[in-house]
């Protein structure tokens, strides 16, 4: 007997009679937190992300020029905000080591925890949000959902092979519980929120 059959057989004889799935609405799960831009921004601040507000996406050009040292590598997947690294020419993700700032879009933001949803197709390389030293993530102001239930409603079927909720810069508290920003992933995350 294969291990698969052995395990499934053992489970079949051990599991109790089938219980039904709970009705989440009846339990009162979700929809009880406010999904406002103000709250979203406050949450981003709480989790250590930097927020930049602007009317137009193009306004980000100025911010990037003023805040990223010249000669540093910028990898961007936002056509309006071209970077210095030609992502289409990179086939090996290891070559992204040394990128100073990664610029990419998020589909929407989640008010309750400051996370933004990112799809693989918007990244070029899956490792981009971790390997870059800093992140510059653009999201539209009208794309904010209240909680994670609404968020999964928006995510729907993930068409690509990878997607993630990203909430602020990477961090650790593994040494004496002292919070340190910048573990293995980015040392800083700027969320650029544009539009009304």
């Amino acid at each position: 007997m294969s291990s698969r059959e052995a395990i499934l057989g053992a489970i079949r004889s051990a599991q109790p009679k089938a219980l039904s799935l709970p009705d989440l609405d009846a339990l009162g799960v979700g929809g009880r937190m406010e999904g406002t831009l103000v709250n979203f921004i406050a949450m981003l601040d709480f989790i250590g992300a930097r927020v930049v507000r602007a009317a137009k996406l193009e306004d980000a050009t100025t911010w990037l020029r003023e805040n990223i040292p010249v000669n540093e590598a910028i990898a961007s997947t936002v056509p309006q905000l071209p970077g210095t690294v030609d992502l289409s020419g990179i086939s090996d993700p290891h070559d992204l080591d040394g990128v100073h700032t990664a610029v990419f879009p998020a589909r929407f933001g989640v008010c309750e925890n400051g996370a933004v949803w990112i799809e693989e197709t918007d990244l070029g390389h899956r490792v981009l949000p971790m390997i870059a030293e800093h992140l510059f993530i653009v999201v539209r102001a009208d794309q904010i959902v209240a909680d994670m239930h609404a968020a999964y409603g928006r995510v729907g079927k993930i068409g690509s092979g990878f997607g993630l909720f990203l909430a602020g810069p990477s961090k650790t508290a593994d040494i004496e519980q002292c919070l340190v920003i910048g573990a293995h992933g980015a040392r800083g995350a700027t969320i650029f929120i544009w539009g009304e």
Partner: protein
Amino acid sequence: MVRTKRDRQAVKVPDWEALREAASKIKEHTLSRLSEYLEQFEAHAIANGVQVHWARDGEEHNRIVHDILARRGAKKLVKSKSMLTEECHLNHHLEQHGIEVIDTDLGERIVQLQKMPPSHIVMPAIHLKRAEVGEVFHEHLGTPRGLDDAQQLTEAARQHLRQHFLTADAALTGVNFAIAETGGFVVCTNEGNADMGAHLAPVHIACMGIEKLIPKQEHLGVFLRLLARSATGQPSTVFSSHFLKPRPGQEMHIVLVDNGRSRQLGREDFRKSLACIRCAACFNTCPVYRRSGGYSYSFFISGPIGSILAPNVDKAAHGDMPFASTLCGSCSAVCPVKIDIHAQLLKWRQEITAAGHSPWWKTLAMHATAFVLKRPALYAFAGRMTRRFTPLVNALKLDPWTKARTLPDAPKESFREWMQKQGRSR
């Protein structure tokens, strides 16, 4: 400290109790139809281009992982946090076969360099002081002697581990949740180490216990809202990564491990322990864990949940663990999936004693206690003797407990004597 942070986050969520109830019910449902959901998960994962393996026990799990690595000629494996691989002693097995294993979670790397196991399932090096970490890094990473700044130590580890990420032949991650309807799985970290490993290496192996399954993607909404808040008091982990398919040119494997879980599933009283999402909230609130630390337990998962998982594996070897509890119930009160931890501890005590795994002196002591408690005069006499002879106990140090500790001074009078005096003066 972590407990306070958890409380602060939990009260900010108006539907917190509804979420706990939902999580508990979803897990119970899943466990009642686990075989179906596993088959569903497997079919979808295969359709996504992932190779699925089944392991009856730790040994088979280790063999599967080693075979995958050997076929690719892999020499270096970067690993993110996985209690399952601790359970199976994977590192040791691979090292014997000449494969270098690098734990990449900062806390796990620290204890790995010390050749010690993690002392906590979320914060593996919680028992160490900054200066001790500095010592370890000085010896292994060449940082200046005496460095004890958390920021600088973390930076040193970042540089050191980045080199390993860039040169690894394969990456291994744990799994927080596996979704039956999509065949995908979610890995949550704050450091980004699971992603750094998995997205760079040509091979990604994800190892999971069969209880990690949930039916639908939308259920992640429930579990992700609970997990980070319960674990570290954050509203969300930094990275909640949803893996579905390997990236082009990459090999992705999932290893499904039983190793005693189907047996626990068949034990009605203890089945619910399989709902655990390993948040460690029960550790952080436990008065016993907080005083004694992870190394005082005999099982690789310590704390309250470890104490109900361990006897399933070996009742005799870990028979002590369910007794190391005050049964205060604080663990059950914070558990995000509502496991009745303290009730299960009590049930294990009964099973262990009935199976004869309780030491003879404990049985004798219990009988003696019962004898005394039934006789009020004898009880009063015993109390007087104890009060009189406490200094002697401290001086003789007969009990191992008193070797490093001094019993507090006994009060001059007993509660009963005090009561009688109160009655008289009134």
